[in-house]
């Protein structure tokens, strides 16, 4: 799991079965000092409450689909939580 910043939204009417009602957000992965790291990705919102500007943590690969209501869906990045605080030394 990595930190990421929500930088936008994505709307798709036609999508794979099981993804109905799932919100997609564009997120920029961050390093631990909250600086951008790598290319932005589209992530499904497992919290259903994240929005642009928010700091979140994302989960990648197979496990991403497991934060969603249906587990057998084609998703490779998902938002698992909204971050309140990060302390890094």
């Amino acid at each position, binding site marked *: 799991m990595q930190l990421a910043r929500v930088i936008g939204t994505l709307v798709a009417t036609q999508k794979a079965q099981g993804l109905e009602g799932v919100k997609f957000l564009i997120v920029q992965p961050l390093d631990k000092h909250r600086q951008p790291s790598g290319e932005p990705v589209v992530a499904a919102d497992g*919290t259903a409450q994240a929005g642009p500007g928010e700091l979140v943590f994302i989960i990648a690969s197979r*496990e991403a689909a497991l*934060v969603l209501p249906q587990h057998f869906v084609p998703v490779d990045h998902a938002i*698992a*939580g909204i971050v309140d605080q990060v302390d890094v030394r």
Partner: protein
Amino acid sequence: MYIGRVSGTVVATIKNELFEGRKLLIVDRLNLHGQPTAKYDIAVDVVQAGVGDLVLVLDEGNSARQIMGREPDGAIRAVIVGIVDEVDFEGSPFNVRGSSATVEHRTSNRAHRQP
């Protein structure tokens, strides 16, 4: 699995129910010279690790779910599964019998773990 150093904490109120009551720590992935690489993970802690600790991190979903008792579902991948006391190989920076820097690490590990 890899060897990491805990460098921070993450607090989140709104999160997947799996993470309720779990501690999330930022772990820097270390190379075999003991230096942090650019990679890090937010990992779930099941061994009472803290900032500064040298830890063993599991980064694989099936095993993570097994440890958390959440098979077959559970959106988890990175778990801190151990606090490392010593790693022994030729030129190991983690070896307590090695460099003085390592001794410092162990000292800080112990200091941190005292109540």
